[in-house]
């Protein structure tokens, strides 16, 4: 059984008892425990079920590489699936549940998959479920999906109770990893004066060293770590962050730090996670190394654990995973576990060392304790029930015939170590195979390259393949100096601290235990625990031709689980290489992709949620609109009222009321969103002549002109009214949402093509609130305001004719009035300072009451313009329409040699007489044509599609005319006036419409010109 030891546990505070629950059971742990150590202390070895076969699984590691002990943590709006017990700090009230089983952890129906495992090998689903076809969707896939997946999904109706944030940080040198190598590297780098940031994923510093022992500068590693931290904390140029994982390295020195602020204290307030967006000149990866499992049959049985992790549980948390332990190894380090266990009073039944010659000093120390060491031996098989009960021992060079069976309740295994090269590799750092240690290590000649083309990542310590304490410290000091130098800070020579630990003899690669294990054993020998990939699966993949490492990975799912192959990749590669008769480096690795360890989506999204998910752009009249029935419509980032609904009124009714009232009385439109650009300079006229299809240079001061803009590719992109302000100044109106893009468009041409032209552009869109005062009584209300104010600008037809503008005062407000109309009614668009926009609107509403004033929204705006046959960018245009299609040839200046889009419009397809052209459409029965309907032609095309001859671009119910009106683009349309064409609806009906002139109302334009 696994229990708490009476002594040990350097990280726990035995005075602080903590209650938590696991699968509903109340348990106790101590402050400083991880969830995994606390569970072990409560004899809860089994912590989960595997992905595919639903095999019972115990914790196998002690850190972020853990593949098995995944938990559902918390409840309700703080629930989270798939959290590792090993990286979860215990807190009072923690609720954890194991996952991927039904009905319970102990009894799981889908464990039947385990019985069927002989059939469910790698790739079985590619070979099965092919016939009959419908069964895949309706039967097989649902079953497979249900048995797959890990934790349950969070409740979809609850919003995350936590918040998240980002933080930008700039450093000369970022050290990832706060073990002794990281701290040593930081010290060396910081001595140069460089600004250093150190990230440590755990809540404690020093990494493995305090567990592994030895001395540093004569102190225990623990003391050295404390001293060094004190030194670093005292330096102004050093920032230390714990609980902050370096999760990804990206181009040009960008790195992400994932800081877990309240995971260990939920609900304490403030953000849960903070994502550090770091820009570093140099990055040091002091990310340590991860121990590899040994591949023997039953290596996934609960109680089989990585040797160093078992040591961690004893030393860090005072927990032993078993009472009778077999240690299996191919290297010297595992002997430390034997010593630690022995010192803690745990029986070490055997040390099984696969090497014929065994190890060095550490082995002797173990033997001196009276522990039996077997050389050249292997584990043939671990028996379960469901946790480890017996271990069969055999010769490493055999086929697995057991020579001895010993009783044990835990196995500590060590297959050697792999440097954590993920962060080195994320951005293109290359690896080299170290034959002596049988691992990939960073190749310092091929680092990731920064913006200057030089390397920007330096690996240090065991992450760089220097496993020994002394070598790691020396390497780290050099890495720190190198990084500082590369960041522009000539290093001061700082002697590396001197690490002393027992000499170790070389490990011996052992990829399969025993070396000639038969197929039955290989089918029970796990490589990837979580995804249930076994030695036999990789061998099968190789045999079937999935020879590339990427093929093997994808065919078997090796390394694709939530640990991303941290434990399994090298072991799997070795099996693959062996199957192919190739060397491991020839086979290569799969690509390392961020993040190093999964990070929350919440953190990635940061603060952007709820009200600040995206900016909402608000006009000065926004609040009034909101309080007065605005049915909001998002238009780009703006929100505009679609209509102002009154209580008891439908949207449709509101629109009809607004339309009629504007035609008959007085309507107000908040048109503040329209773009306003000042274009000024000696060459401004020439420039606008290029920007617009029309001639703008000849516009008289005081006058307005409707203008069209095209892209260089010829397509209509924007429209609006241009006013000439003075000799060298024009004011250009753009569509809503066009302000920024058209401003950018103008600047682009000015800066990159005609940079010798003297033109300045300023975007003054938001300086003004712009209100359209529309309807037969528009002049009356404005004159009333002027009368009330005791004077103001002359708004008469004579003083301010149609398509002109004036500046002056209206109702006491400084204003600019444009006599322009997008409705066909008498209309003034009036711009006042944005800060006075609401006051001006209030004045209009107040003065307009006697004229039955009503605000109107975008839908009414649309209908009014459609009744007049005015086109709308985004409705009649869609990026494929040229002005010629819309009968706008009058706006294409014939006098100009050039304007943007002119050359493009001369291409053959643009001049094709078969292009669809703008017409009005009237349904034969007065109904409203469906939005986006297509007109049916004759026959089908070569691909069997029905031929189309046109489409509806705008369609509305016109309250003014009490019938449906529409505009559309129709092949040869203008020549087919009066013809009736068919529009099949998606509702099964076919609509018939007559081709008519697109101007439905006031064809002579008398109403706007009064």
């Amino acid at each position, binding site marked *: 059984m696994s229990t708490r030891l009476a002594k040990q546990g350097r990280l726990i505070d035995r005075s602080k008892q903590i209650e938590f629950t696991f699968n509903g059971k109340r348990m106790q742990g101590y402050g400083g425990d991880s969830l995994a150590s606390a569970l072990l202390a409560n004899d809860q070895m089994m912590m989960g079920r595997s992905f595919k076969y639903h095999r019972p699984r115990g914790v196998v590691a002690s850190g972020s590489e853990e593949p098995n002990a995944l938990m559902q943590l918390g409840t309700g709006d703080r629930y989270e699936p798939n959290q590792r017990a090993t990286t979860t700090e215990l807190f009072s009230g923690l609720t954890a549940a194991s996952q991927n089983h039904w009905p319970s952890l102990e009894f799981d129906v889908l464990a039947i998959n385990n019985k069927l495992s002989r059939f469910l090998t790698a790739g079985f689903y590619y070979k099965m479920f092919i016939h009959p076809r419908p069964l895949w969707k309706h039967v097989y896939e649902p079953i497979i999906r249900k048995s797959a997946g890990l934790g349950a999904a969070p409740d979809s109706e609850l919003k995350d109770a936590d918040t998240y944030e980002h*933080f930008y940080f700039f450093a000369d040198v970022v050290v990832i990893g706060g073990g002794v190598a990281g701290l040593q590297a930081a010290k060396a780098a910081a001595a140069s004066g460089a600004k250093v940031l150190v990230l440590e994923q755990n809540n404690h510093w020093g990494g493995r060293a305090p567990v592994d022992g030895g001395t540093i500068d004569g102190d225990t590693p623990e003391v050295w770590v404390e001293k060094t931290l004190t030194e670093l904390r005292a330096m102004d140029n050093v920032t230390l962050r714990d609980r902050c994982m370096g999760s990804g390295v990206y181009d040009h020195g960008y790195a992400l730090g994932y800081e877990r602020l309240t995971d260990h204290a939920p609900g304490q307030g403030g953000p849960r996670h903070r994502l550090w967006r770091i820009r570093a000149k140099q990055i040091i990866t002091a990310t340590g190394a991860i121990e590899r499992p040994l591949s023997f049959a039953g290596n996934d049985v609960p109680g089989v654990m990585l040797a160093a992790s078992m040591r961690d549980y004893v030393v860090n948390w005072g927990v032993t995973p078993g009472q009778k332990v077999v240690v299996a190894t191919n290297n010297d380090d595992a002997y430390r576990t034997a010593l630690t266990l022995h010192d803690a009073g745990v029986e070490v039944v055997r040390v099984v060392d696969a090497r014929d010659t065994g190890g060095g000093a550490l082995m002797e120390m173990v033997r001196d304790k009276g522990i039996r060491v077997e050389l050249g031996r292997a584990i043939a098989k671990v028996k379960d029930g469901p946790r480890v009960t017996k271990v069969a021992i055999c010769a490493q060079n055999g086929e697995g015939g057991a020579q001895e069976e010993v009783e044990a309740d835990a196995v500590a295994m060590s297959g050697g170590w792999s440097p954590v090269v993920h962060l080195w590799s994320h951005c293109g750092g290359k690896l080299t195979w170290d034959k002596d240690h049988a691992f990939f290590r960073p190749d310092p000649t091929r680092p990731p390259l920064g913006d200057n083309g030089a390397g920007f990542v330096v690996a240090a310590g065991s992450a760089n393949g220097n496993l020994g304490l002394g070598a790691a410290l020396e390497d780290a000091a050099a890495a720190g100096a190198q990084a500082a130098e590369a960041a522009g800070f000539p290093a001061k020579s700082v002697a590396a601290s001197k690490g002393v630990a027992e000499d170790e003899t070389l490990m011996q690669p052992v990829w399969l235990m025993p070396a000639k294990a038969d197929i039955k054993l290989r089918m029970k020998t796990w490589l990837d625990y979580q995804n249930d990939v076994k030695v036999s699966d990789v061998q099968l993949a190789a045999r079937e031709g999935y020879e590339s490492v990427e093929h093997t990975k994808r065919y078997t799912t090796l390394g694709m689980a939530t640990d991303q192959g941290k434990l399994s990749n090298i072991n799997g590669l070795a099996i693959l290489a062996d199957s192919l008769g190739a060397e491991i480096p020839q086979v290569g690795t799969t690509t390392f992709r961020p993040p190093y360890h999964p990070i929350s989506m919440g953190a990635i999204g940061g603060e*952007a949620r709820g009200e600040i998910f995206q900016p909402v752009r608000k006009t000065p009249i926004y609040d009034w609109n909101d309080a007065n029935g605005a049915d909001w419509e998002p238009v780009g980032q703006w929100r505009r009222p679609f209509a102002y609904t009154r209580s008891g009124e439908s949207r449709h009714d509101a629109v009809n009321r607004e339309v009629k009232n504007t035609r008959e009385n007085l309507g107000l439109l908040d048109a503040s969103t329209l773009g306003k650009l000042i274009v000024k300079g000696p060459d401004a006229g020439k420039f606008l002549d290029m920007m617009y299809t029309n001639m703008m240079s000849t516009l008289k001061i005081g006058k307005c002109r409707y203008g069209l803009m095209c892209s260089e590719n010829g397509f209509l992109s924007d429209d609006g009214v241009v006013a000439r302000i003075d000799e060298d100044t024009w004011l250009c109106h753009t569509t809503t949402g066009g302000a920024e893009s058209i401003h950018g468009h103008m600047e682009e041409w000015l800066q990159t093509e005609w940079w010798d032209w003297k033109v300045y552009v300023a975007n003054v869109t938001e300086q003004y609130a712009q209100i359209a005062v529309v309807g037969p009584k528009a002049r009356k209300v404005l004159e009333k305001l002027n009368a009330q104010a005791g004077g103001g600008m002359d708004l008469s037809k004579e003083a301010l004719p149609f398509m002109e503008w004036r500046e002056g005062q209206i109702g006491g407000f400084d204003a600019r009035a444009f006599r322009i109309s997008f409705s066909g009614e008498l209309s003034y668009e009036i711009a006042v300072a944005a800060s006075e926009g609401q006051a001006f609107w209030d004045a209009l509403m107040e003065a307009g009451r006697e004229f039955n004033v009503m605000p109107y929204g975008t839908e009414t705006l649309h209908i009014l313009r459609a009744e007049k046959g005015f086109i709308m960018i985004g409705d009649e245009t869609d990026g494929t329409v040229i002005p010629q299609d819309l009968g706008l040839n009058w706006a294409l200046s014939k006098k100009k040699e050039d304007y943007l889009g002119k050359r493009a419009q001369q291409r053959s397809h643009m001049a094709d007489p078969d292009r669809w052209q703008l017409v009005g459409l009237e349904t034969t029965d007065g109904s409203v044509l469906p939005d986006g309907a297509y007109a049916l032609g004759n026959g089908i095309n070569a691909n069997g599609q029905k031929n189309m001859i046109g489409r509806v671009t705008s369609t509305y119910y016109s309250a003014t005319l009490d019938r449906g009106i529409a505009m559309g683009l129709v092949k040869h349309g203008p020549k087919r006036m009066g013809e009736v064409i068919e529009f099949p609806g998606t509702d099964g009906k076919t609509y018939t419409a007559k081709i008519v002139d697109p101007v439905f109302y006031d064809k002579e334009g008398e109403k706007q010109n009064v």
Partner: protein
Amino acid sequence: MSNPVTATNGAQFSGIATVADVGLQGMITLRGDLSSKPLAAAVKAATGTEVPAQGTILVVEGGAAAWMSPDELLLLVPYEQAVAKTAELTKALKGEHALAANVSDARSFFQITGDGAREVLAKISPVDLSPEAFVAGDFRRSRTAQVAAAFWLQDDGSFRVVCFRSVGAYMFGLLSTAAHPQSAVGVY
């Protein structure tokens, strides 16, 4: 004629720093040749400052001038004087190729005061806001979360942030969120 109001109308929030709507501020966009003498004279007349160097703002009593781009300044003047000063600038620069536009009402204007001010901005802007990198008088146009903004550091250690008026409410929400009382990063 009414009392003009800002987009966020005096809003204020206190956490690791205090975020507040500064109120109405006269602002003039001035484009032109920044090395020209008439322009320098006009700037001086309008604000009382010289033409600022790249990336900086010059602040004096009642006025300021900030470097926006190689051919653009942002001039700060009292709100009530903005219209008149724009006209004066235009007049003074007649004959020069220049453009002065009153943008006082097109902006939202915030201040961030208190110890956490640097950290508040550093959460939302990809700019090195450490004390060694960003000093009083530095003026930076950048991005704050999803909108463009400009900000500078005053001599008293407080920041001023300018953005478009339409996103004033968003900016206030953003700054307030970043200033959450339990969100101190603890590095500046």
